[in-house]
């Protein structure tokens, strides 16, 4: 099953879980199942059925906005990472 990585800021909606295994052949299917199990995520991830602007989603490290968006295919051993958009530069 694909693994979804949850950023710290969203873990209060996943009972603190950082990684969740979810079935689905596209990002949309994966997220639908994710939201069904953790309804608090819906408003965090979606706005009017689309991904929110401050959410970046990567399948195997590639930003889905440059593949097929929510229809981007997900293979069974793929990693889907949800990452917040932040200003660049480090704390170092």
């Amino acid at each position, binding site marked *: 099953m694909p693994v979804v990585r949850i950023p710290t*800021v969203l873990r209060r909606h996943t009972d603190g879980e950082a990684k969740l295994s979810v079935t689905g052949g596209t990002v949309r299917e994966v997220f639908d199942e994710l939201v069904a199990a953790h309804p608090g995520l819906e408003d*965090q991830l979606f706005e009017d059925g689309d991904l929110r602007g401050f959410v970046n989603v990567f399948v195997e*490290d590639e*930003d889905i*906005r440059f593949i097929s968006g929510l229809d981007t295919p997900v293979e069974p051993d793929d990693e889907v990472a949800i*990452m917040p*958009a932040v200003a*660049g*530069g480090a*704390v170092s």
Partner: protein
Amino acid sequence: MRFEDVSQAIGNTPLVGLPHLSPPGSRIYLKLEGDNPTGSVKDRVARSLIEQAEKHGQLAPGQRILEPTSGNTGIALAALCRVKGYPLTCVMPANTSEERKQLLTMFGAELVYSPAEEGSNGSVRVARELAEADPDVHMPFQYGNPANPLAHYETTAPEIIADLPDVAAFVAGLGTGGTVTGAGRRLKEWNPDVKVFAAEPEYGDLVYGLRNLDEGYVPEVLDLDVLDSRIKVDSRKALTMTRRLADEEGIFAGVSTGASLAVAVRVCARLPEGSSIVALSPDGGWKYLSTGAYAPGDVDEIADRIAGTLWA
């Protein structure tokens, strides 16, 4: 080359081939921005921010400049402000490294710290509050100022085109988005077939420092339409490639360079046989020695230990 002051010695950095790290059938070149006067690509941006503000009448002689910066931009601005006669205040996270604090202080900048746990978003917030409270300061704000991508449109990309006219792809890290947007746009005007890839650093959890996603931020200067893809790189991969760069090519660079190089190696397979790829190296490794990034030991362990303080 002779220059009358340091501001004129910015740019015209070397483009250096990587014969050992380039996958077979591809040629990767690194543009070594660490060769700029204060040691980073941000010299170009700082000069553009100041000169555009002067040109548009936004900056009076002797007026204080205020900018949120995690390091390189501040150091570049501080040096230029010295020769151009502007006082400077830099807003940065409290856990900024000693090297940077000392460099900035030596260049005469005033330092204001934002909460470490808010990361660079916190610096942006604090700087905006300070600028609103004091109408006498000028905040160039590199995240939203077209002078930032303009620096790369007018200098970085033309240098690449002059040195490597058959460039097929360009890779740079995503911070403000100025490099990929400005250089990428110019390269695509030169040849629409040029591919532009952004390396998105996957910071340690600490860096995100958000209480909710609404505190996220997409820099205004970033134009996603210029990008062909955005690929994230974690600390371990970036550090591994940075150390290989020293070990195999004799180039000592910061960890952001390793991230862009990892993306360059990854995308070679998508380009025609014989393609030339340029990855931008924003700075050398000197400022990061104290992080332990280059210390002997297991790369995975080092990456885990310093994931929160690694990136530039």
